[in-house]
């Protein structure tokens, strides 16, 4: 697990419409509900469906968070869309002790070779889980499950209330998708 006392900086990569910003928001709300300090924000600007987008979360157990700049040296990167791996260097700036969390069908070994990743790596086929559980390939809540498995940054249960507020009648399916991803995520290195 990442050092839980310090400030943890998480950068989300997705495409407009996949819900990276929602993931970031839900995670921050969960952390705040646990009494931690946290904030979340999108990569600022006009949003376009399908275009690569970023979102950011900082979580701090003991200290209020004062920095508001975008995260360039994250402890964790989360990638919602496998197609981004070949067009963006998603691990740019990732700290040596950090972890990358990918939605992918490929194995960790294969990805290490293709992308030259030397940090820890967590993988899950989130698109398949989302299709099966939600019926749509929207991987935001699914990848929150993978992130929690990879980092323990918040408790899985802390997401229930924020997801329920956000998704209403679709909440249960999103919670199930998150839990499936939590169980299926493989961590390596």
């Amino acid at each position, binding site marked *: 697990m990442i050092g839980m006392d310090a400030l943890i900086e998480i950068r989300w990569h997705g495409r407009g419409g996949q819900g990276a910003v929602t993931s970031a928001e839900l995670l*921050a*709300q969960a952390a*705040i509900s646990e009494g931690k300090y946290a904030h979340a*924000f999108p990569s600022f*600007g006009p949003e376009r469906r399908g275009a690569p987008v970023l979102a950011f979360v900082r979580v701090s157990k003991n200290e209020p*968070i*004062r*920095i508001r*700049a*975008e995260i360039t040296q994250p402890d964790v990167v989360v990638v919602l869309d496998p197609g981004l791996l070949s067009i963006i260097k998603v691990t740019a700036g990732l700290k040596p002790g950090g972890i990358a969390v990918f939605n992918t069908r490929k194995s960790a070994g294969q990805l290490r070779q293709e992308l030259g990743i030397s940090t820890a790596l967590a993988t899950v086929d989130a698109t398949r889980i989302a299709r099966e559980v939600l019926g749509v390939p929207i991987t935001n809540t699914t990848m929150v499950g993978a992130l929690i498995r990879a980092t323990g940054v918040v408790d899985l249960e802390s997401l229930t209330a924020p997801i329920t507020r956000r998704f209403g009648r679709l909440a249960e399916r999103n919670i199930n998708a998150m839990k499936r991803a939590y169980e299926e995520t493989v961590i390596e290195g």
Partner: protein
Amino acid sequence: MAIKVGMEVSVAMGEMVKLASADVIAAYPITPQTHIVEHLAELVADGELDAEFIAVESEHSAMSACLGSAAVGARTFTASAGQGLELMHEVLYVASAMRLPIVMAVANRALSAPLSVWGDHSDVMAVRDTGWIQMFTENGQEVVDNTLCAFRIAEHPRVLLPLMVHLDGFHLSHMIEPLLLPEQSEVDRFLPPNSYPLSLDPARPVTMGDFAPPVIYTETKWAQEVNLRASKEVILDCWKEFGDAFGRYYSPVESYHSEGARVLLLTMGSFSETAMLAVDSLRSQGVDVGLVRLRLWRPFPFDELRQAVKEAEVLIVLDRALSVGGPGGPVCSEVKAALYQVEPRPKVVSFVGGLGGRDITVSGFEEIIKRGMDIAEKGSASEFEMFGVRE
């Protein structure tokens, strides 16, 4: 008892307007202010806020509608940013000169061209002289707290002036962060009903914003000046009573490790907290530096500023706006004017940066402080430096 919630700052601002029981919201959406008015439109449509939401066709109309609304004594709110604030520009002067207590959130944004939806203080500086009370905020909690204070200050019988709460576009408006929202009962205790004394009433006809020939115009402007300056007393009282009620105190000029520091950095708005981290880092390396943050922009807090910087040898000012072809940073030029009559006074160094949404990181602020100290020692041929610019 209020509990801490994770909420977007724009949404929280809408919630505060609801808790303040606003009667009329007339607004036109513009990035990055959009989430504030969207949330208010939802609250009104869902019946959670018993107010008129006037969906106007432009910002000029938004502010014009606010004039009429405030003039009948309705609690009136609007929000804008960047180009939208510019489009309502001429009406802003009318609101203040007619003594109409309108509260407006400005999600600070750069001005075109080139088109930028991102944050800086160009829009604030363009409306500097419109006669409104103006305050900056550094984080979401300050937005929440000062939205409540804004109504109480603006509507106070000794003030009756419109008030802008500035929150940095995106860096504040789009942040989800931990916020304490007050209970309705706490708000009701703190914020008295709006009792506008001059409200339009067919039974007691009055004329507002009348024609003023040369024989009276100067006197109206002097009255406005006296009134805006005098509002500071009410602002200070309000912040004191807010602090006593809610435990969070605000001042026109605020400090961070500035007591006795040889070098001071001065900032406004949400970048101030990032600047604190740079101050911490440099202090740990033995640099005698502190931070001063300007919260109240109008009326300008001359005495508080002079007091806050009186022991410093160097004062570095970071503006997020450019007075093109002029002295550089608009805030810096006012700071210099405020200190010109004072002996001894610090050497003042002007930086302009963070324009159009460009981040200034902790190491960026460290660089500004070191470079500012260097310029103070060796002098510089230019009026100001543009931080991080590629030439």
